[in-house]
């Protein structure tokens, strides 16, 4: 068959999600954020939630998430997204409220807001991008940075003596009575992306069903910060990150 016979509307099996705006993202080539944005846009459209969604954007690389997914958004101060989401959700209980946060936002400056929103069992979804580095500010150490990992503020590698240990905060969140679904996913292969999409869908369903807080951690790459190519970053992640942050459900009630 010739390409022109295949490339016809009736044969289309994958299209750019309509809920993505036309803007090009500011993310570096190969950044995991783009894949997760795409999944969120696909799901909100597929689940018919575009008109009732309130997204809460963080400070960090995803600060401009609101430029890309065409729903109502509120931009939070650094770390405060779960506090905003708490009020947005409680005051608008029939809305689909989700936060989109990085590791610095969720696991360092926003630790209190994150833990307490989860502990109260707020009916929100928290999408947590863990790439073990501060991307937006130029590659500094994150709470999730692995031991030995070189960053702008651990130029000789993170040591436990100086910087403490990498924080698997999702494990902590799974211990809280308020969370109903806590899972750790990745988007480095087609199969992983499909699983991650299923996880975010389950989280959104929990939020709609008022079952408590759902947390979807995406172990992700920051190839600029890691100083690797996108493909190398995926390999490095599979080799090193998954040992500390193994994929799979931590809680599914």
């Amino acid at each position: 068959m010739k390409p022109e016979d295949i490339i016809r509307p009736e044969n289309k099996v994958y299209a750019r999600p309509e809920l993505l705006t036309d803007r090009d993202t500011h993310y570096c080539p190969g950044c995991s954020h783009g894949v997760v944005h795409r999944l969120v846009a696909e799901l909100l459209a597929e689940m018919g939630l575009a008109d009732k969604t309130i997204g809460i954007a963080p400070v960090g690389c995803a600060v401009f998430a609101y430029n890309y997914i065409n729903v109502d958004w509120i931009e939070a101060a650094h770390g405060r997204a779960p506090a905003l989401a708490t009020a947005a959700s409680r005051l608008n209980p029939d809305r689909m409220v989700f936060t989109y946060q990085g590791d610095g936002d969720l696991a360092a400056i926003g630790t209190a807001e994150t833990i307490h929103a989860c502990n109260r069992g707020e009916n929100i979804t928290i999408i947590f991008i863990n790439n073990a580095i501060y991307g937006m500010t130029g590659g500094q150490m994150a709470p999730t940075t692995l031991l030995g990992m070189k960053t702008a503020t651990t130029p000789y590698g993170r040591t436990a003596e100086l910087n403490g240990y990498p924080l698997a905060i999702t494990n902590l969140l799974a211990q809280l009575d308020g969370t109903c679904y806590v899972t750790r996913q990745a988007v480095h292969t087609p199969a992983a992306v499909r699983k991650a999409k299923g996880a975010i869908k389950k989280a959104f369903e929990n939020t709609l069903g008022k079952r408590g807080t759902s947390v979807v951690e995406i172990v992700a790459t920051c190839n600029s910060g890691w100083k690797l190519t996108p493909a190398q970053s995926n390999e490095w992640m599979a080799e090193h990150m998954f040992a500390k942050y193994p994929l799979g459900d931590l809680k599914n009630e």
Partner: protein
Amino acid sequence: MAKVYGAVTIDSRRCKGCELCVVACPCDVLQLQPKEVNDRGYHFAYASKPEACIGCAACATVCPDACIEVYRVVDRGN
């Protein structure tokens, strides 16, 4: 036996040449342009072996910039 024909279109303006689609493709359909670049200076992806495409959408699934669309025809021989 049914035969599957696939094809992709790539928004070369939007593509950042990250190469993740090239790695994900099980049929080695895609490559980055070796010399040509888009407006932003990226060696964008293109189908160098379009006839090998089975329309599995692995490339689009891992694309961070949502710039790949996928088409598939299943020819059942009738």
